């Protein structure tokens, strides 16, 4: 499996079918509709953890998760992602987006994606580390610098009744590894009353350049591309107009070319969180 996955995703994104079931039009601010030109800040405070598959690296605690977004007429900012909406109908949206590569979170605790998590990076960049001659190639690879990367590409979001789907075809534009990613997911509400229970399933396909940049070892382990499927179960219960309780469990199976890396000791990443979300404004 190589670039055909990316090319297929591009084709699907650009040939997004006509609306099958239209969503409700935006007539008032709601969970589905936001006011143009207004900032939205929510903060989730609770307890959670993300397992870390990298050898010797601790799991990542989750205590505070801020969510900041801004929607202009076309432009939007959504946490660390930003983009431009090309097409928006009641059930389909086609965006150009810029989104960070997420693998870095396992190597650097102070990555921006590990918001507000106390402590410093578990693995130091070269030059900062006390590199000894005894260090193995694996250890050197683990300590290798991995810069923050950004992918750019197209994103297709769609709704089928109450279910939502996503397909993104992305290219690493910051020039670190020039790899590709395809991200896809589909979420189905199992319960949608006052409380909601949503089951999601999806995948991330990473080209060999992406996998090699994070999990490869020069001259020792040169991985191919990877397909990571995941499932997630999320629960949300509104408590007041500005506060809700939320909990989720996310299980992601690592593709064999990642799981087989000598840097990796686990073949899956599990993330769980439970806490309260406050809408600040």
């Amino acid at each position, binding site marked *: 499996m190589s670039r055909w996955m990316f090319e297929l995703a591009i084709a699907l994104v650009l040939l997004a079918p006509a609306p099958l079931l239209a969503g409700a039009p935006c007539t008032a601010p709601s969970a*589905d509709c936001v006011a143009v030109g207004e900032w939205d800040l929510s903060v989730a405070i609770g307890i959670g953890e993300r397992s870390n598959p990298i050898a010797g690296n601790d799991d990542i605690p989750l205590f505070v998760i801020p*969510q900041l977004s801004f*929607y202009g007429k076309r432009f939007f900012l*959504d946490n660390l992602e930003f983009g431009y909406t090309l097409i928006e109908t*009641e059930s389909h949206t086609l965006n150009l987006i810029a989104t960070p590569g997420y693998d870095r979170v396992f190597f650097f605790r102070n990555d921006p994606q590990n918001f507000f998590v106390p402590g410093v990076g578990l693995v130091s960049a070269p030059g900062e580390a006390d590199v000894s001659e005894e260090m193995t190639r694996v250890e050197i690879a683990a300590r290798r610098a991995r810069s923050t990367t950004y992918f750019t590409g197209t994103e297709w*979001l769609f*709704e089928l009744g109450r279910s939502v789907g996503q397909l993104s075809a992305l290219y690493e534009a910051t020039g670190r590894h020039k790899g590709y990613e395809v991200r896809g*997911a589909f979420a189905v509400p199992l319960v949608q009353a006052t409380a909601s229970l949503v089951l999601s399933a999806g995948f991330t396909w990473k080209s060999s350049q992406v996998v090699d940049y994070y999990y490869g070892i020069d001259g020792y382990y040169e991985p191919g591309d990877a397909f990571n499927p995941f499932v997630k179960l999320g629960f949300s219960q509104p408590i007041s107009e500005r506060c809700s309780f939320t909990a989720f469990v*996310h299980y992601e199976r690592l593709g064999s070319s990642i799981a087989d890396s000598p840097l990796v000791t686990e073949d899956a990443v599990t993330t769980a969180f439970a806490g309260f979300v406050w809408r600040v404004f």
Partner: protein
Amino acid sequence: MRARSFAWLLLATIVGAPDVSAAQVGSAVTLDVKPRVCTIAETDELCETTVRAQWRSERDESLCLVIVGRPEVKRCWDNYSEGRYSIELAFSEDLTVQLRDPNLEHVLASAAIAVIRQAVELRRKRKQPWNILY
């Protein structure tokens, strides 16, 4: 002679013309209400503001200030040539303030506060099932 009389009549008409405003009904009493417009977001249900009313008359008057649809609001003056009144109000539609005679039978002056709702432009929120925080 006739032309001179017409000129004087015209001048007197211009100089002596009464100050006509929308809030003035009749010849003597003028009513000024602030604000004239209350602008609220489309998502807001009510305009909450302090309504300030001020009236003047060339001669002493006995009258009452009322607000249409608000029977609880009534302020009367007896033989005054001016008066002021303010009240905190919350309203969703245009508000009409009136000056009436003490028996509330005749409207002497009237002014309105217009409620204008700002149109809020909405768009769909990005729903990303791939995102762990979705």
